[in-house]
């Protein structure tokens, strides 16, 4: 029995660690899309900005906490920059500009080796409390830390969306001409939502770097954006609880497919493509048939018209 637990515990820890990071990442997207109706197809860019800023600042001698804060702030700042030209226009424009930005950012991370070490990636940066915590317990510690952060983010967002502020965000999602006619500065609210969502993604980026101990541009492929979309939609758009559950489901599923990998006659590039096809199909089918998600709160998003 004990041996059994010893075997399964590290595995479980890994799933939970990754899930908590992705839950936070997706909570940022849920604020933007689920509550405000913004389409951000480049969410991964903010994950990357958070991760790179944190580790690069730390490697050049700044304290860890300061580096993380800078990472969050810079991610939020880029949300602001992208929001300025797009958020007064139709929702399509934000989608285009964010997806373009995430691709351009990946090129920059790959090519500006003087800054980012290109495809070699970065490792050897500090992890929180690494001197104090014994190595064999480190992941458990990290898990506790991440769950605590997730808790803080989750409850803050819940508070946010159940406030008059959240009411304005939801009204923008529904039909922005109504809050406009009532005197709410829709553009400013959209911008704030994008900034907060991006900053949260930046935080998730720092966490991802701590977990992986190594980042390179390939850590931040476009697919990560769509993983977040799947998480949000799976769990029920506009439900923070659903988003956390969605993250857990997706990563349990992904680690499940690792076992299957040995039994299917796919080559390695095919396995990656296969996974993306599944993600794409899931996105299409969920939006077509179950836009309220599997755990959507009542029929909040199911009513058409």
């Amino acid at each position, binding site marked *: 029995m004990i041996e059994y637990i010893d075997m399964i515990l590290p595995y479980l820890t890994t799933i939970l660690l990754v899930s908590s990071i992705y839950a936070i990442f997706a909570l940022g997207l849920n604020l933007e899309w689920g509550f405000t109706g913004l389409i951000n197809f480049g969410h991964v860019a903010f994950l990357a900005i958070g991760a790179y800023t944190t580790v690069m600042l730390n490697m050049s001698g700044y304290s860890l906490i300061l580096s993380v804060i800078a990472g969050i702030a810079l991610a939020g700042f880029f949300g602001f920059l992208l929001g300025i030209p797009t958020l007064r226009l139709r929702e399509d424009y934000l989608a285009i500009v964010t997806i373009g930005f995430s691709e351009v950012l990946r090129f920059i991370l790959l090519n500006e080796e003087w800054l980012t070490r290109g495809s070699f990636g970065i490792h050897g940066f500090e992890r929180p409390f690494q001197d104090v915590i014994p190595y064999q317990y480190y992941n458990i510690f990290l898990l506790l830390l991440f769950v605590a952060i997730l808790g803080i983010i989750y409850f803050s967002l819940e*508070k*946010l969306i159940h*406030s*008059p*502020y959240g*009411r*304005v965000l*939801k*009204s923008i*999602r*529904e*039909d922005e*001409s*109504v*809050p*406009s*006619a*009532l*005197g*709410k*500065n*829709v553009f400013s609210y959209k911008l*704030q939502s994008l900034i907060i969502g991006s900053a949260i993604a930046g935080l998730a980026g720092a966490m991802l770097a701590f977990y992986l101990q190594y980042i390179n541009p390939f850590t931040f492929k476009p697919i990560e954006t769509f993983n977040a979309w799947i998480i949000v939609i799976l769990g029920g758009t*506009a439900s923070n609880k659903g988003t956390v559950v969605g993250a857990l489901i997706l990563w349990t599923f992904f680690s499940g497919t690792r076992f299957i990998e040995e039994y299917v006659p796919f080559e390695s590039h095919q396995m990656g493509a296969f996974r993306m096809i599944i993600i794409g199909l899931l996105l299409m089918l969920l939006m077509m048939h179950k836009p309220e998600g599997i755990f959507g709160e*009542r*029929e*909040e*998003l199911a*009513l058409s*018209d």
Partner: protein
Amino acid sequence: MHYLTDQVVKLDILSVRNLKKHFGGVKAVDGCSLKIDAGTVVGLIGPNGAGKTTMFKLISGFEGGSGEIMFKGRRIDKLPPFKIARCGMVRTFQIPHALTKMTVLENLMLAPNIQCGEQIWNIWLRRKKIKEQEKLIKDKSQKILEFFEILHLEDEYAGALSGGQKKLLEMARAMMIDPSLMMLDEPFAGVNPTLARKISGYIEELRESGMTFLIIEHDIPAITKISDKIIVMNEGKIMAEGVPEEIKQRQDVLDVYLGGEG
């Protein structure tokens, strides 16, 4: 002539000069000028496609056109809709814009301006004030819902309401704000007659308290009954303007509009 003296005694809250809006070849609003005195009810009538709704959109900033619009002595054409709304003007939409995936109560509670909890930092810094405000706003919402006879639906999603109920919701939401000028686009369309009369009464009550109304309506008897002045539009132009009795007598108005109704 009496018009001039009128102007001296009464303050016009809204004045529009030479307003124009073209959609391709269609001249939806074609050089309209009008003045609305504070504390009056003005009816805007005219056949379908006359340009009434477009006029509303121009005044409330939802469409850009040419011309000059003054509201409470301030130029507002060029301002975005939310700023115009903050000057104290609220409009309803002809086709109700219910926020479908929010509850009826939430739809109303959204409306009041300068809510403390609409500022993000206040959510953590001024919890008590927000709580108090929320309670006040909720009470007011419920009172208004009760007046419009949809209080029993307060926890339903607005998307689940019937067409007429959505119309009521649209109006109830506007009533949540206490604006200086309330612009209603066909408030009585699809509303049962008893309730329509009740709403008329409410409008007169609010006017007594100093509110100004600009109301688009096809129900001529209803609108002439509550209006101090009627403006008739046709093909983008203002063709007649005056007290209801006068308008009812005008042959040209009868021809384009009232004629059809006998």
